[in-house]
């Protein structure tokens, strides 16, 4: 691969693949300029020291070797950094030798995206100014619409699905992640690592309030602060204790106390069970969203199971989230332009409509692109369907 030569790639192969850059100093250099895309940051004024308790929070390690050969021990003289330029605090020159910066985290695959800040800057450059449809705009307005666009795109367009591997604990509930917006899919994973989808159930739900009632009238009872006293959730407890075989109809010769699937009845009716409901007749279990506690509750048969929890966030939860796939870049520009023009006075309606259609078309394109529909993959799947596909 070519070295950076003025294109969009600024890092060398060593910077990208090894996450490091070595600068050779002759002995007179007062500063060492590194060219990582990622800004090098010291966590604090003292965290340069390998002995400092916050040293591990720096996003890089600064090392020195007098001859360029391993080992590269950490540099132990007080230094500071600004704009990826390292200088000694005492103002002296660096000794002759080889100075290596190693990133603690690599940025593999970062070329697929563009940061939200770049989107905002690019938008202001290309869409705002004299002689353009948007003569002037506050950066905060662009920021707002860009972030809102990012949120909307995250919900149904971007591949922003996050996955957590979890075990269902004894209380059958897992806490919703901090950046949870909606679930995509929850699956039980068997011993082979194959996913089995767990469906939400309509058979039960998690009440949001459980007021303690007066026995005679049924009226809720209040505490000294005039709020309703809350009881314990009996429904959830029952659901947690429920034997799922009574719901799924699973045949079990040892199931002596079955009500809908009694052994005697079942034994006489093997092969004659009609009207099974796919929603309930599976052994994968169910889940409900418990909004009261901010948890997901699972059916009792899943205790101890390994699950994959796939959910979407809004793309803004953490700084690292705020990366827009390049395939959605144009759609986000269109979204910002439309949102700004639609909210302005004296913009002719035909302009607004033009930008609305523009946004819609670009968003559709983005969805198609990000769907990753490949002809060969479809063909391979459809071969299983005993159909002749010409390609």
């Amino acid at each position, binding site marked *: 691969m070519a070295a950076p030569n003025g294109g969009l790639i600024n890092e060398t192969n060593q910077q990208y693949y090894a996450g490091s850059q070595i600068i050779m100093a002759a002995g007179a250099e007062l500063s060492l300029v590194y060219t990582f895309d990622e800004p090098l940051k010291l966590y604090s004024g003292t965290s340069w020291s390998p002995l400092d308790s916050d040293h591990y929070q720096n996003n890089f390690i600064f090392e020195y070797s007098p001859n360029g050969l391993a080992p590269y021990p950490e540099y132990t003289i007080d230094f500071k950094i600004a704009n990826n330029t390292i200088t000694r605090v005492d103002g002296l020159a660096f000794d002759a030798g080889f100075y290596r910066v190693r990133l603690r985290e690599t940025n593999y695959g970062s070329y697929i995206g563009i940061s939200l*800040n770049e989107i*905002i800057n690019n938008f202001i450059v290309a869409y705002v100014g*004299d*002689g353009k449809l948007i*003569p002037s705009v506050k*950066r*905060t307005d662009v920021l*707002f619409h860009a*972030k*809102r666009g990012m949120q909307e795109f995250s919900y149904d367009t971007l591949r922003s699905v996050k996955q957590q591997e979890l075990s269902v604990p004894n209380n059958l509930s897992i806490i919703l992640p901090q950046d949870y917006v909606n679930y995509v899919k929850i699956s039980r994973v068997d011993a082979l690592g194959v996913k089995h989808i767990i469906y939400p159930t309509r058979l039960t739900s998690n009440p949001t309030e459980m007021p303690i009632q007066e026995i005679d009238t049924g009226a809720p009872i209040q505490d000294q602060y005039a709020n309703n006293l809350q009881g314990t959730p009996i429904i959830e407890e029952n659901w947690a204790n429920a034997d799922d075989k009574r719901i799924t109809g699973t045949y079990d010769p040892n199931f002596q106390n079955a009500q809908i699937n009694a052994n005697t009845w079942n034994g006489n009716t093997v092969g004659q069970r009609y009207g099974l409901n796919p929603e309930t007749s599976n052994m994968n279990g169910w889940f409900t969203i418990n909004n009261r506690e901010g948890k997901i509750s699972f059916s009792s048969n899943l205790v101890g199971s390994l699950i994959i929890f796939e959910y979407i966030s809004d793309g803004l939860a953490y700084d690292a989230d705020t990366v827009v796939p390049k395939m959605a870049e144009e759609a986000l520009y269109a979204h910002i332009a439309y949102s700004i023009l639609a909210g302005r006075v004296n913009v002719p309606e035909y302009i607004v409509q033009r930008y609305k259609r523009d946004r819609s078309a670009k968003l559709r394109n983005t969805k198609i692109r990000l769907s990753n529909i490949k002809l060969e993959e479809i063909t391979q799947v459809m071969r299983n369907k005993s159909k002749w596909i010409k390609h």
Partner: protein
Amino acid sequence: MAVSVDTVYRTVLLIMNKESRGYLTPDEYNKIAEQVQFEMFNEYFEDLNQQLRVPENDSEYSNRVKNLEEKLALFKTTPKAAIYNPGGYFNLPTPPVQSAQETFTSVVGQAAYAFQVLQASEVASGTLQVFYDGVLKTEGADYTISPGGGFINLIPPAMGVFTINVVLYQNDFYKLGTVIYDNKIEIERLNRNNFLYINMSDLTKPNENNPIFIFEENKLYVYPDSIINNVTANYLRKPISPVWSFTVNQGYVYDPINSVDFELQPTEQTSLITRILLYAGVVVRDPQLVQLAAGQIQNEKVNEKS
């Protein structure tokens, strides 16, 4: 390249035909010249605003927006560091070039010293540095300046003989331009009421990637509060007042060394002359001259804006 203050003066006198209409003294001329230069400078902003609202042409020398930008370019400063004040704001960049200075020799027991060289109004509006025998002193602790700018008061009164050197940095700030953080991020200007709402929204709350500032009492309040350095600002400075300096030798003799030319572009020479003539006509009470100049100015405006 500037417009020669002498050329303009001579042309004005020529057109006035001083023998028949009266004479415009250098002092009158200097005052009118300053007024006219500032007037024309101020009009650039409105003209530019007007021209930005009409379609531009792509010609090399007749693009009005470009021409106006060129006229203003001379007064645009490059970004200079704004100084953080522990009070939580940044002061505007201090002009780097001193405009004048005055030296006193202290008298034992004397506290107040009246400025003779420095103009009181300039002292009041400018920034001072005061040195006692070359040592920089602090305003408030070592000295104060009288409210009108006419005196410096030593704290305490002089207890010995030393040299007081007062250096004046003329406050040439006129309009604030772009405020920049870390040499790459533009800090957005907001009004206080907008800031309150923007600060309350999680989506728009200022951060180091999207900082904002409020400009009040000539101070920059930058948010987020974590920004306490690396703030620069450029601004538009005021034009330096033109001065037609002279020596007296059987009349007024032009002194090119102490004179200050107009700072406007050479293309403005004819406009300068016409406008000075207008005021000169008022000074010498010549309606014909006023009418002639006013008509000429009107024609120019119509031509420039139609």
